[in-house]
């Protein structure tokens, strides 16, 4: 008989390690998605996933049963990912010979795409890549809010709880992130490529 999530959590609290695997199976894609979007790197995302599930396993007894488990996992993942990126960036700053990230140039990208790929289907493929790249180019704070709100569908209150900030801050970050994205995506927005 398949155990419910609540039962799995209760069993894990009691020290039943077999309850961990179904929980990992259920949340691994969500955790990966978040970790990957925040860290922008497969290897780093895997590290974040490891830390996230280890933390879930070790801290399951501190999980308040009246809260949503999913939100709790979100919180752990986001915090782990943000901390990971901050540590990584500090390390990179200390390294003199750091490969600079390619500056995202929307206009150049748009022109190149139009010139090289005249077909609509190919254009849409490029557009996907372009939009994804634009989101990636956002600052860490703005990117996190956009990911949680627009792609994960969390409310302002949930995001505020996860990021430990006020709802107003979340709204503000979302607003500026969208403005930045509008600027980045301006060629496509103006061209009506939707």
């Amino acid at each position, binding site marked *: 008989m398949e155990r419910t999530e609540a039962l799995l959590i209760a069993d894990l*609290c009691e*020290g039943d*390690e077999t309850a*961990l*695997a179904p929980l*990992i199976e259920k949340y*691994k*894609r969500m955790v*990966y*998605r978040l970790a*990957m*979007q925040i860290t922008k790197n*497969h290897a780093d*995302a*895997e590290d974040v*996933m*490891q830390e996230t*599930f*280890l933390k879930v*396993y*070790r801290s399951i*007894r*501190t999980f*308040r049963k*009246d809260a949503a488990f999913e939100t709790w996992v979100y919180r752990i993942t986001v915090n782990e990912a943000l901390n990971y990126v901050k540590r990584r960036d500090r390390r990179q700053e200390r390294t003199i010979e750091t490969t600079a990230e390619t500056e995202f140039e929307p206009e150049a990208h748009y022109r190149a795409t139009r010139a090289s790929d005249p077909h609509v289907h190919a254009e*849409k493929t490029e*557009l*996907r*890549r*372009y*939009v*994804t790249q634009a*989101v990636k180019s956002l600052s860490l704070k703005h990117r996190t809010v*956009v990911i949680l709100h*627009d*792609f994960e569908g969390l409310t*302002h209150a949930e995001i505020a709880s996860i990021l430990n900030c006020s709802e107003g801050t979340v*709204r503000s970050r*979302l*607003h500026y992130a*969208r*403005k930045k*994205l*509008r600027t980045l*995506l*301006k060629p*496509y*927005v103006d061209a*009506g490529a*939707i």
Partner: protein
Amino acid sequence: MSLKCQKTQRLLSDYIDESLSERQMADVALHLDTCRTCKREAIDLKKTCHLLENFYVEPEASDAYYARFTKTLQQRIDQNPPTALHQQVRGIGARLTWQLLARVRRYIDRCVPTRLITVRQKMLPYYALAATMMTLLVAPLVLKQMPTGENGEHALGHLYATAKARLFSTSTPVSHQPAATLAIQQDQTTAQPAEIRRNVSRSRTTETPTVNSGSDLWQFTDDPVAEGYILTTLRKNSKDTLPSVALDIDSELLAYAELLSQATPGEYPTDREVLTDGRYALLLLQGIRSGQHALQQYKRKRGQFEGFSRKLLDVPLETLSITEVYDSIEL
């Protein structure tokens, strides 16, 4: 850009998400109807959101990636299991605390069905702490007010001692009525007629020992172990002290009720009857339990402490009285 436009544009993101209040939504809509710049901004923002919604590609990993991840994670868990002692203790502590708080909460919920009192979960530890501190503060005051016994002990202490004695006593259960019960009552001269006291005094020829039981009542229950014998086990309250004569011999006192063989069968000593050499109650000593070994032990000890049994027989009637008759016994 006017102040109104700035204010509107700050709200545009929430306007697109429709997460503003009704009034704010109406205000922004009204402004957008009259301001081309803001309307253009709103349309662009909406198109941007649409682009994100339709063209953003969420990352996805292959099954091999997840398989590798799961394997690595399992290895890490095995290498560093979260079952170290401190983690176990912490976990148990957290679990117990949680269970306690949950019980308290359930109890409060049950007691207050109308929820006139709402207890916030976060506050429960503080409530529990406050209740503990209050108990510690109030308990000494309550105990001070409790009536004290003759020995200066609290009634609570007496109750505790009685309960402990009943629970842990190895003698016959309380509910079991003893066949023979002897009671040594400490000096009751004030309650006894002077004439009886004088008669008793005259009938005694040997020296009367000092019996200080430390309690008003020594009660003995019987415990038959062999033919012709009833070895009576002392049911002793934990706060009682043994008679000094008994203490001279052993701290573990058993009582032995005895009728001499020449006593008439069916004739039992009665309450306040003067005990003579022919019919007497004998209190005996320690270590006698049951079985053949006990019998031998009893005989040995009886010979060894004959003087003591004699002394006990010389206890004045006011001190030794029989409250219940015992079964016919042959020695």
